[in-house]
């Protein structure tokens, strides 16, 4: 059948197809070329470096060795940085989810006019970059900052607290920094949940909490999955926030990686750290989405259980 088709197809059509394909290829080639040369190739070179040997004083020696990975994974100092990065990222993600959900629900049920205004408010901080937002948070959390000032004037504390350079501060600020992404992702999914469904549940006697747990939450699950994944990756990769809020006391992977390159010029170890960071992030995300989607489908099947 296929062969017949091929014979039947006029030669001119074939020629046209080829011309069209050529045109399509030439259209995508500038972007493809640029991404290959400026992005893919440099990344591959950097990954290759992670197998080289670091020689202090010199640049490095070409080799095929795993010693950089072994050094990273056997050094408690680096492992603590990695673990801290994961714990802070997970906590910030959960915090962002819990805080973003009510806002997203509220946004999704708003009339269009107000909704676009609120979306502007949510998107704006995101466009500013993280340095300016970290600056604002420093003014909130520093010794003479707004937070300490308020606590002192209410008499809740007698001397200023050290809030900056604590894991608490980094977690809170990271959650605030990534929240716009969470709000927007959740909002897009909740928007599609018919309000009729909630009303029907309520008519059948469900309480507000039951409506949330049994109707909204399961239906918003794809948004929750997408939002938490995106936000988790952003937290894992964060540079400016942990650097400015956490400082050397709350070192996370991206600043540690940068100082490995900038201060010590240890490109092989830096490369290994980059591979570990990307690898851990991808592996965690894959595992998480697998567990969650499996659980989600199971709860969907048992949906009649109340």
């Amino acid at each position, binding site marked *: 059948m296929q062969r017949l088709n091929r014979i039947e197809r006029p030669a001119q059509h074939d020629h046209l197809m080829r011309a069209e394909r050529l045109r399509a290829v030439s259209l995508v080639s500038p972007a493809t070329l640029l991404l290959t040369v*400026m*992005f893919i190739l*440099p990344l591959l070179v950097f990954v290759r470096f992670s197998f080289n040997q670091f020689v202090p004083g010199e640049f490095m020696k070409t080799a095929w060795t795993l010693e950089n990975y072994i050094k990273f994974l056997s050094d408690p100092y680096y492992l603590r940085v990695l673990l801290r990065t994961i714990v802070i990222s997970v906590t910030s993600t959960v915090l962002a989810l819990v805080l973003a959900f009510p806002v997203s629900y509220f946004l999704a049920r708003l009339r269009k006019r107000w909704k676009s205004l609120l979306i502007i408010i949510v998107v*704006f901080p995101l466009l500013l970059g993280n340095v300016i937002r970290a*600056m604002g948070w420093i*003014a909130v959390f*520093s010794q003479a900052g707004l937070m300490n000032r308020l606590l002192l004037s209410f008499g809740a504390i007698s001397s200023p607290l050290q809030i900056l350079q604590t894991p608490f501060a980094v977690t809170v600020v990271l959650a605030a920094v990534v929240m716009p992404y969470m709000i927007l992702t959740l909002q897009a999914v909740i928007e599609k949940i018919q309000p009729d469904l909630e009303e029907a549940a309520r008519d059948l006697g469900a309480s507000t909490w039951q409506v949330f747990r049994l109707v909204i939450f399961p239906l918003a699950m794809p948004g929750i999955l997408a939002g938490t994944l995106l936000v988790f990756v952003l937290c894992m990769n964060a540079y400016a926030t942990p650097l400015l809020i956490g400082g050397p006391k709350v070192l996370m992977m991206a600043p540690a*990686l940068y100082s490995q390159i900038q201060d010590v010029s240890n490109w092989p170890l830096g490369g290994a750290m*980059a591979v570990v960071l990307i690898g851990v992030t991808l592996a965690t995300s894959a595992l998480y989405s697998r567990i969650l989607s499996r659980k989600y489908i199971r709860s969907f099947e048992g949906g009649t259980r109340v």
Partner: protein
Amino acid sequence: MRFGLRVSRYFSYGAVTAILGFVLAPVVLVVWISFFSQQLILFPPKGYSLAWYQNILNQKNFINAFILSFQVALAATAISMIIGLLASIGLTRFRLPGKSTLQNLFLSPLVVPVIITGMAMYIFFIRLQRMMGIELVPSFMVLVLAHVIITIPWTVRLITAGLIGINAELEEAAMDLGASKWRAFWRITLPIIRPSIVAAGIFAFIFSFGNLEVSLMLVEPGESTIPIEILNYVFWKVDPTIAAVATVKIVITGILMLIADRVVGLSNVF
């Protein structure tokens, strides 16, 4: 019952306002601090002053950083829009082998930590520089191309979405009436997707203008972009001077965002 409903409604308004405040408050705070009269930040301030804004004009490093960021963002946006538009047409208007691979390639800069992207580019071009004997890092060209890479996902995504959204029959109708494929695209499709293209340009500009990580290793010492200049300052202290610099950036970004919202509506982009 009614009273209870009203209370819960006010409560939910309050909660949503508080959470939005949590996101927006730091930005508002930075703007507020830029008007404080005393150098040392104390709440509440002793008085207000515009002196810090005047002060910016005397600080060459900030002015130069603004100029460099503008130039880089402008050049990167132009390149990113052109090759992003071409790529989007190729992806949506033609049958192309390996289409999904290409799509993933165009979006891939969003997945890799930007700081790693910047480092990889730095070391790659240092190597290339040694082989070819021309200066590449730091150079304006490499800095611009690096910013093209981080903006490409946005231009391709926005323009592709615009192209998918329109009715392909319009173009076919024009061709039936005798227009060439090129002419039909130029006269019919392009005007329809103009908002998407404009939005792509504005967002490319904003993301380039605000990006810190990719430039960190690609700039000359003493000649950096505005996010780096602000970072280096904030690393040591936060005072009204830097708050004023940040406020200028906040205003520029805000104006651009409002234009983008007018053109496409932000809720359609995010």
